[in-house]
C-alpha cells in the first residue's frame, strides 16, 4: 500500500565529511518602525542524514525564524538575513536565486507548522491541497495526483483516506489536520523535514500519536528531521541531539542523553528543573526568574546573565564563546564546566 511512498535511497551527493544541512553563523534581524530587532545572532547547527535534531527554546528565542530562513520563507521585509551561510549538500542556499531556492522547498526540505488549521487553506479540500504540490511541482495529472494523495493520507494513517479527500480542513480533528499537513510535506519525498512545534496546538494524547508518527515516518522514509519545540518532554524519546536556543543564539548543544543527565548551561539547567517530577514530593517547582530579553536591547555580555544564578562580572562584560566539553558537546557559558559538575551531582 505504502510501497510507492518509500523512496529508493539515493547515493548521497553530500560531499564527504560535510553535513546534509548546516547553518553557519546566521544573523537575522527584523527591521521595524520601532527599531531593529536582532532575532538571530550567530546560530550554527548541523544535521546529518537520518538523524533528528531538536531545537529547543522559549517563544522568541529564534528557533522558528532559523527554520524559516532555511526554507527561505521569511517575510523580507521586515526580516533581513544579515550574514551567515545555510549549506544544503554543500551548496549555500543563501547565495542561490529565488527560483533555485523554490526548487529546494518541498522537494529537498519540507516543513510542517504549529497550527494546521490556519496553515491549511480553508477554502480548498485537503486532497486538492496535497495534490496541488504534485500537480504543480511534478506535472502530475489530476487523477494521478488524487491517487497519490490517497496513498499519502494512508501513509500518515488517516482513516478512510479516499472518502476524506474532498473534505475541508475544518472538517478534521486537530490531530487529523496535522496528519494532513504531514502528508502534504511528504508529497515530494523530502530529505529533510522541519517540524515547527508540530504538537503544540494538540491534546496531550494526540501529541504522543503525532510524535510517534513523525518518528516512524522519519525512520521508514530515511529522512533527517529538525524538531522545533519548547517542550522538553516531547524531545526525549525522539531526538538524537538537542540545540538549546536563547535570544537568537545556541547556548547549549549536546546529545539527548548527556544533556538530560547533566546540562552544562544554566538556562538548560533551569528548564530541566522547572519540569514537574513524579518522584520528588512536597517541593516548590523551581522557575527561571525574569523574562526573555527584548530583542531590540539584548543585554551585554551573555544575554542570559540578568536571569542567571551563576552570573559574575565577566558575564556582563564578555560574550561567552562555545566551550567544547567533549563528546560533541558545547555550551556558551563562562562557567560551563562548573554548571555541568553541579548538575551531575
Amino acid at each position, binding site marked *: 500500500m505504502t510501497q510507492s511512498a518509500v523512496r529508493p535511497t539515493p547515493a548521497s551527493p553530500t560531499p564527504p565529511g560535510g553535513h546534509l544541512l548546516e547553518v553557519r553563523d546566521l544573523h537575522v534581524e527584523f527591521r521595524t518602525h520601532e527599531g531593529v530587532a536582532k532575532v538571530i545572532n550567530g546560530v550554527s547547527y548541523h544535521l546529518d542524514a537520518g538523524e533528528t535534531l531538536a531545537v529547543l527554546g522559549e517563544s522568541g528565542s529564534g528557533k522558528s525564524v532559523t527554520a*524559516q530562513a532555511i*526554507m527561505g*520563507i521569511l*517575510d523580507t521585509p521586515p526580516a533581513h538575513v544579515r550574514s551567515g551561510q545555510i549549506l544544503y549538500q554543500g551548496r549555500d542556499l543563501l547565495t542561490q536565486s529565488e527560483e533555485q531556492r*523554490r*526548487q*529546494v*522547498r*518541498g*522537494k529537498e526540505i*519540507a*516543513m510542517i*507548522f504549529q*497550527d494546521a488549521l*490556519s*496553515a*491549511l*487553506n*480553508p*477554502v*480548498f479540500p485537503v486532497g486538492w491541497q496535497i495534490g*496541488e*504540490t504534485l500537480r*504543480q*511541482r511534478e506535472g502530475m495529472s489530476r487523477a494521478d495526483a488524487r491517487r497519490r494523495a490517497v496513498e499519502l493520507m494512508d501513509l500518515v494513517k488517516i482513516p478512510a483516506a479516499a472518502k476524506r479527500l474532498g473534505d*475541508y480542513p*475544518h472538517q478534521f480533528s486537530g490531530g487529523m489536520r496535522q496528519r494532513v*499537513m504531514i502528508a*502534504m*510535506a511528504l*508529497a*515530494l519525498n523530502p530529505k529533510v523535514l522541519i517540524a515547527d512545534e508540530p504538537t503544540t496546538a494538540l491534546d496531550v494524547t494526540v501529541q504522543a500519536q503525532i510524535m510517534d508518527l513523525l518518528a516512524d515516518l522519519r525512520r521508514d522514509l530515511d529522512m533527517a528531521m529538525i524538531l522545533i519545540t519548547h517542550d522538553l518532554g516531547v524531545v526525549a524519546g525522539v531526538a538524537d541531539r538537542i540545540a538549546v536556543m536563547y535570544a537568537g543564539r545556541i547556548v547549549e548543544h549536546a546529545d539527548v542523553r548527556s544533556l538530560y543527565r547533566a546540562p552544562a548551561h544554566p538556562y538548560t539547567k533551569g528548564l530541566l528543573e522547572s519540569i514537574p517530577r513524579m518522584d520528588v514530593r512536597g517541593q516548590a517547582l523551581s522557575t527561571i526568574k525574569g523574562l526573555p530579553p527584548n530583542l531590540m536591547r539584548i543585554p551585554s555580555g551573555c544575554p542570559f546573565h540578568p536571569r542567571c544564578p551563576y552570573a559574575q562580572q565577566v558575564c556582563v562584560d564578555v560574550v561567552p564563546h562555545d566551550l567544547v566539553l567533549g563528546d560533541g558537546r558545547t555550551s556558551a557559558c563562562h562557567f560551563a564546566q562548573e554548571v555541568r559538575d553541579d548538575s551531575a551531582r
Partner: protein
Amino acid sequence: MFRYILRRLLQMVLAFFGTTLIVYALMFAGQGDPIQALAGERPVTAAQRAYLTEKYHLDATGVGGFFYRYFDYVKSLLQGDLGQSLTGRQIGDILQAAWPITVKLALIALAVAIIFGVTAGVIAGIRRASIFDNSTLVLTLLVLGIPTIVLAPLAQYFLGVKWQLFPPTAGSEPTFYALLLPGIVLGSLSLATALRLTRTSVAENLRADYVRTARSKGLVKRRIVTVHVLRNSLIPVVTFLGVELGNLMSGAIITEGVFNIPGVGFNLFRGIRTEDGPLVVGIVSVLVVVYLVSNLVVDVLYAVLDPRIRYE
C-alpha cells in the same frame, strides 16, 4: 441548506407584508387631498371627485378605511395587478418599460466596480504602501466623500457638456453609450468601496499562515497569489458586490434624475413628487421583493464560496 432557504422564503413573506404596509401607510397618511394632487393646479369637478372617491374607496375613513384600502391593494397585488397610477397608466407597464433601463445601468455600474475596483484593490493589496496604494487611497476617499448629487452634475457638465465626450442626457430610449457616463458615476461609489475592501482583504490574506505553507510547498508566487490568496480574498468582495447589485437594481434616484434616464428611480422620484400614491407603493413593493431575493442569493452565495459556512 434547503431548509434554510425555505425558512428564509417564509421570512420574506412576512417582511414583504410588513414593508408594504408601512410604505402604504406613510404614503397615504401624509397626503392631504389625493384627488387634488392628481389634478395638479386644475379645478376638479364634483362629478370627477365622486367618481375617483368611489373608485379608490376614499369615502371610508379612519383606520378601518385605511386597512380596507390596503387589503384591496394587496388582493390585486397578489393577482399580479399592481394597479394604476393616478395618471391612469398601468404600473406594471411603467415598470416593464423602466426596468430594463435600470438593469442595464446597474450592470454597467457593477462592471465598472469589478473591472477597476477589484483589479486596483488586488494590486494595492499586494503593493502595500506603494505610490499606487497611496494614490488609490486618496482617490477613493475623494469619491466616497463627494455625494452623488454633486458628482453627477459635475461629470455631466465637464464630460458631457464642456468636453462633449459623452451625451449629457439619456432620453427615453437610451443607448449603451448614453448610459455609460451615468453608469460610471453610479458605479464610482461601489468601485471605491470594492477597492478598499479588496485591498484590505488581499493584504490580510497575504499574511495568512496558509500562504507560508503554500510557499514552503515550492509554488511559484503567481500561483500563490492568483489561486490561494485571491480565492480567499474575494469572499467578502463578492458578497459586497452581490448586495450592491441588489441596491443598484432598485434604481438610482439621483443619477437617473440628473441624466434624465427613464428608469425605476426616475419614475419613483416622479411618483413621490406628484404624490402619486399607487405608483410609489407599487414600485416600492416590487423593490422590496428584488431586495429580499438578492439578499437571499447573496447569503446562499456566501455559503457556496466559503465551505466553513453552514446554514442549518
